[in-house]
């Protein structure tokens, strides 16, 4: 489990990239849900944390492949391979990503 950021640092509609191997992207949707996925698009090297967040989908900033944050599944070309998803936990105002080893982002 890694510490991503505080809830205050991640307002709805925003995302944060956590460096590491693999890098993780954490999203706070406009509906208030938190999701974490592998940050690197499975199509080509691009940071999904830089992508456009729309509902519970994120669009890759380079080639517009779209991923479902709930499942990691791509919904359109050019991506064909899902990104890994991770459970997110909030404790005492801090956002944690479970199931991944690594150093804290902060």
């Amino acid at each position, binding site marked *: 489990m890694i510490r991503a950021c505080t809830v205050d640092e991640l307002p709805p509609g925003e995302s944060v990239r956590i460096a590491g191997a693999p890098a993780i992207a954490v999203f706070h949707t406009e509906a208030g849900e938190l999701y974490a996925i592998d940050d690197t698009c499975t199509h080509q090297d691009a940071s999904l944390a830089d992508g*456009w967040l729309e509902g519970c989908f994120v669009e890759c900033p380079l080639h517009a492949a779209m991923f479902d944050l709930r499942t990691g599944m791509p919904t359109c*070309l050019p991506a064909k391979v899902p990104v890994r998803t991770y459970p997110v936990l909030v404790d005492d105002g801090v956002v944690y990503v479970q199931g991944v080893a690594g150093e804290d982002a902060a």
Partner: protein
Amino acid sequence: MKRVAVVGASLAGVRAAQELRAQGYDGGIVLIGEERHLPYDRPPLSKAFLAGTASPASLELLDAGDLASLALDFRLGVRATALEPSNRRVLLSDGGSVHADGVVIATGGRARTLPGFEGAFVLRTLDDAVALRAALVPGVRVVVVGAGFIGAEVASTCRSLGLDVVVVEALPAPLAPVLGPELAAVCARLHRDHGTDLRCGVAVAGMSEAGVHLADGSLIPADVVVTGVGMAPATDWLAGSGLPVGNGVHTDAGLATSLPAVVAVGDVARYHADGAGRRHEHWTNASEQAPVAVANLLAGRTTRTYEPSGYVWSDQYSGTLQLAGHPRPDDTLSFVDGDPASSSFVATFQRDGATVGVFALNNAKLFNRLRRQALRRPAAV
């Protein structure tokens, strides 16, 4: 409609097949492809695939699950030779034919060649890329004719392989008619910063074993010559079909041709909007046109019209270039972030007080925000 023939098995054809299923069509789909290969993605051909870091399998557009769910009847390695509307038939180069109630024309185009450059490499198909890759052995001197996206990407990949590269371009600056002079200068800088010898305003005369001969009589020595001078729409097979085919298959604003139940998508589609015929040769266009063309095909009339996003990207050297909208070279350019000398910047094109285009070098996040805000592109979901 019981059977649809999709003629052309690249991105536009695949996207059309996917849209047919997505929009509820459950009849037969025959996918006709001139190449032997299963459908593959072309953008990596000039980059990772040419560099040897992407495998042919990684280019495939459809995985086993897609192939099972789409239930396509493939006719690969055969070319469509004629469309016979009265018989509802597509004739094939192997002597066979396909009877179809609907036809999607997605035949793309062929790489243009230059007189005097017989034997030069071109880059459009997987086989083209395999042949060029084999020629890029250590020590060869490469000359690329044409500094558009393909030429620039090939030059970039050759530099990454450690090869000496000269790029010759007839225009005063690369991509100037698309991007305008200031951004064309940025593209020229990318070449020079990475050790490519870019020569603009140069007319070529031909090639020989010695290299590329210029119109002024001089010679640029070369072991490998690549021409990247655009493409010609593949419409020859439509002669006699009754379809108008000057510079692409002519369609209405909804990609429907003058023949009932025949639509066109991708590089080959020349649609008419606002009184002008337009054709785009980009990945995103091929992908975006499919839902519109298929909806109209299934409706039997034009119910939707095509609104291009104008999105294009190119990876060259250390730069990712992104362009959206429909700028003209005489639009006013303003830098929202960074400046033309930066390694990362975003600029917008203004015309009559409105933003008509967004361009970015290595700044995808801001590019995408501006592209939506300024160009008011509809949501993609």
